Structure formats: C-alpha cells, structure tokens
C-alpha cells in the first residue's frame, strides 16, 4: 500500500476563509442596463433577446447585485477581457455573493480554471496531454455504445425526458470512467453539479456546507486510489509532477472537482439544447436526418447559437475600461453566448444555419483558459446526436411549457419532454 503524506492528516474541508460576502438581492429586474441578473427566471428562459438589446443600447451593462458586476455583450469586448489576464483575474469564475480572499490567487480553488499566470500554465499543461484529440478518439466507441444503451431503455416509450434520461448520463459516464470512479455514482454527481453551479444566491455558510459534500466524496476517491493505484486520471493526478514536485493535495482535489463539474453540466447542456432546437425546428431536424454529412457544421453551429457556458472574472484594480469605470473586485460576466451572437462578427447571427461554414465561435472560450475538454465535448456532442438521429429521426416537443432551463452561468435544459415518432 502506498503511503502518501500529502493526504495523511489533511483537513480537506477548506472554508472560504477571509471571503468577503455581500447580501443576496433577488427578484425581478427593474432595468437590464443597470440592474441585470443572470439568475432570474426571465434570463434562464431566454437570455438572447436581452443580450441582443443590450449589445445595441448599452454594450457594457451593470448591476449592483452580487456586490457589483458588469456585463459586456460585444464579441470584441468579450475577447479583450478573455485575453487580458493582467486586468481581470480568474480567482473566481462563478459569480456569487462571496468574493474569495485575494491570497487564494494565483492558484484558486480549482486549478487551472481558477488560476492566474504564472501558476496557471503548469496546471493546464498537465491536463492538455490527457485531453488531446488523439486521446479522445480512443473513447469514442465506448461512448457510442453507451448512447445506444441509454436509447435501448427508451424504446417503446412515447414521451421521454431527453435531458434527464439521455443527455445528462453521457458526460457523467465518460468523465467518471476517465477519473476511475464507480459508474453507479452518477446520481451523486448530479447533486454536486447542481450545488456548485446553481446555488448562487446562497449564503457563504450554505455554500461551504454544500461544497463539503463534494470534497468528502473526492477525498474518499483519493484514498481509494492511493491504496489501489490504477490507470486512470485520478492516479495520474496523484503521481504527476510539475517542476519536480508532486501536486499540492488541494491542487489534486481542486482539479478533480473541476473535471467533474466542468465536464458534466456543460456537455449535458450542449446535448440537451441541440435536441431542443431540433425538436422545435422540424425543417432543421428533417434536413439533418436526410443529410447526415452536415453533422460537423451543425454541431459547431448549435454550439455557437446555444453556447452553454458563461464565465466570470474579477477586476484586478480600479480602471477606466472601454468607457466605464470598473472598481477593483467588481465582477465581470464573460458571456461567450453573447459574443457568439454579435452581428459584427457573424452573419445572420440570430439564426441557426446548419451548414454555416465560417464559424469562429467561442463556446469554448478564448485565450489561456480555452476549454481543455473541448475535443472531448465535441466528440460527446457529435456522437450523442448521431446516435439519437439514427435511432429516433422523428421527434418533437411533447410539452413546450414542460421544458425547464438551468439557472445561472451554465445554461441548458434540465427537463426536456420529447415525443418520439
């Protein structure tokens, strides 16, 4: 049995010590230019008209909620912020009422997504080799077989919940296999993901209590992998070295948490939103069924139009930026979905064009934090749609009002009742 001192006496419940909390403000938005909120139902129902309107009228909106936040909506501004790691920190990338303490930078709670230079580079590099296109190719057959297995269970049913019964399970299984977690733990992951991403207006104490559930789970997995090392991502993170040192235990736990959360909710949302679009747009669905060779451009276009992920940054110091006065520790909501619908960058930006050939969308972000899992996510989305279209080429929304969208920075359907046939 391996003895690893790093984890021997670790108090792995790390509170958000020194965090600065602000009082939650909820309720309907009075004016989107001065009081925006991405956690109100109107936004999660359909954020695009709001973003399109702001882009024209007030390209950098503001809110006093969350202790102060900005919302740039043009492609140019989103790209500039994503590339400016001197002006904007990734110390926290999910807006809440808690700003993590300054000294948590440049590592952050979930490296590399929460890390700033110069620390970020090494933490990212060690993941890149595991998630290349070549590495991902090896997972394709198993992913396809699993998609079929899920659809086998739906055979004969008239109405299914494509978000709960299909989309959700694909990324859960893929990432849990990669990390070497028991496949039957899937339902637990759904709870962790929900707590991390949708509990935005909770108090700091509630957030700490909920995140402890996830850390307890990961800590148990670490202990199991230390006792029984095997060929998976968890053992790799435990054994790998950066600059001649094994990783700090919090780095290992933080990266595991990141992969679990960043890998599941996002891809689940992308698969669900794509099926939702095809269900409500018979012309596109029929075209994709008749011309399966369009799948490559179609998946990129669905990622552009329904980009699931919005990130956040914290302003590093007071500055006048593109016409507004930003203060140190103001939040910035970094809306890749809004950048993707900027007519200055994309023709027919508000339409879904399945054969769009020129598509430099930024659903996977821009700059040094570009999604490490993008090759994996693209494979999962393509395979999930290919298998679905092959098995159920005809489907429609069974109950448009029964579609439930997630709240917060990762947007996708959490319930999607579809009628088959």
């Amino acid at each position, binding site marked *: 049995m391996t003895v690893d001192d790093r984890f021997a006496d670790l108090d792995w419940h790390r509170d958000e010590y020194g965090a600065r909390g602000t009082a939650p403000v909820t309720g309907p938005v009075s004016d989107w230019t001065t009081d925006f909120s991405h956690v109100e139902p109107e936004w999660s129902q359909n954020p695009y008209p709001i973003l399109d309107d702001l882009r024209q009228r007030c390209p950098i909106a503001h809110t006093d909620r969350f202790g102060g936040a900005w919302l740039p909506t043009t492609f140019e501004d989103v790209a500039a912020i994503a590339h400016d790691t001197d002006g904007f920190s990734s110390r926290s990338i999910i807006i809440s009422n808690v700003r993590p303490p300054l000294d948590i930078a440049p590592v952050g709670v979930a490296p590399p997504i929460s890390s700033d230079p110069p620390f970020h580079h090494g933490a990212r590099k060690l993941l890149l*080799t595991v998630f290349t*296109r070549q590495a991902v190719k090896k997972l394709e057959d198993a992913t396809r077989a699993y998609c079929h297995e899920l659809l086998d269970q739906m055979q004969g049913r008239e109405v299914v919940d494509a978000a709960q019964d299909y989309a959700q399970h694909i990324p859960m299984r893929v990432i849990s296999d990669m990390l070497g977690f028991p496949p039957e733990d899937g339902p637990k992951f759904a709870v962790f993901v929900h707590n991390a991403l949708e509990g935005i207006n909770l108090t700091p104490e509630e957030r700490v209590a909920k995140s402890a559930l996830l850390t307890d789970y990961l800590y148990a997995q670490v202990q199991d992998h230390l006792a029984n090392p095997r060929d998976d991502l968890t053992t790799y993170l435990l054994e790998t070295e950066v600059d001649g040192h094994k990783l700090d235990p919090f780095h290992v736990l933080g990266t595991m948490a990141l992969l679990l959360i960043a890998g599941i909710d996002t891809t689940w949302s992308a698969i669900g939103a794509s099926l939702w679009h095809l269900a409500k747009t018979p012309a596109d669905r029929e075209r994709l069924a008749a011309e399966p060779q369009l799948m490559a451009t179609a998946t990129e276009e669905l990622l552009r139009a329904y980009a699931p992920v919005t990130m956040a940054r914290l302003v590093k110091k007071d500055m006048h930026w593109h016409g507004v006065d930003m203060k140190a520790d103001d939040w910035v909501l970094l809306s890749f979905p809004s950048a993707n619908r900027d007519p200055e960058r994309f023709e027919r930006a508000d339409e879904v064009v399945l054969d769009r*050939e020129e598509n*430099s969308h930024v659903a996977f972000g821009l*700059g*040094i934090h*570009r999604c490490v899992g993008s090759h994996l996510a693209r494979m999962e989305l393509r395979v999930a749609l290919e298998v679905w279209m092959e098995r159920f080429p005809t489907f429609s929304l069974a109950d448009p009002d029964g579609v439930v969208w997630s709240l917060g920075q990762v947007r996708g359907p959490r319930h999607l009742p579809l009628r088959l046939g």
Partner: protein
Amino acid sequence: MKVLLDSGRCQGHGRCYDLAPEVFGEDDEGYARVHGDGVVLPDAERVATLAAKNCPENAIDLIQDNALQGATS
C-alpha cells in the same frame, strides 16, 4: 497559397487540424503545427481558407500567391 501560424495566439482549439488535416497537425498538447513550410497545394486551398476563417483566435494568416511573388521578386 501559403499559411502562416502565429503560435503566440494559438490556444489549441483544434479547428484548423480538424478542417484541414492536409495543412495542419497538432503537437502533443493539442496546439497547431503547420506541415512542412506551409505551402498549400491547390487542392487544399479551400480547406486551408476554411481553417483560417474558423480559428477563434485569428491565429492563421493566408498569403496569396500573388503576394508571395511580390515578396520574392
């Protein structure tokens, strides 16, 4: 036609080596590499152009033949 890759901008989105494998490859971290000296055969000009237009980081420049001739003559 010739492609120029700005590796300072490339973040490894991989659109180029997906769309134009004739012209681009990847290193072991997923960042793009240009095959050979970047000269694009006529058959591959279409995909090379597509790759440049799909790069989210604007990391790929295309140099047309007439510009190349202008530079060397």
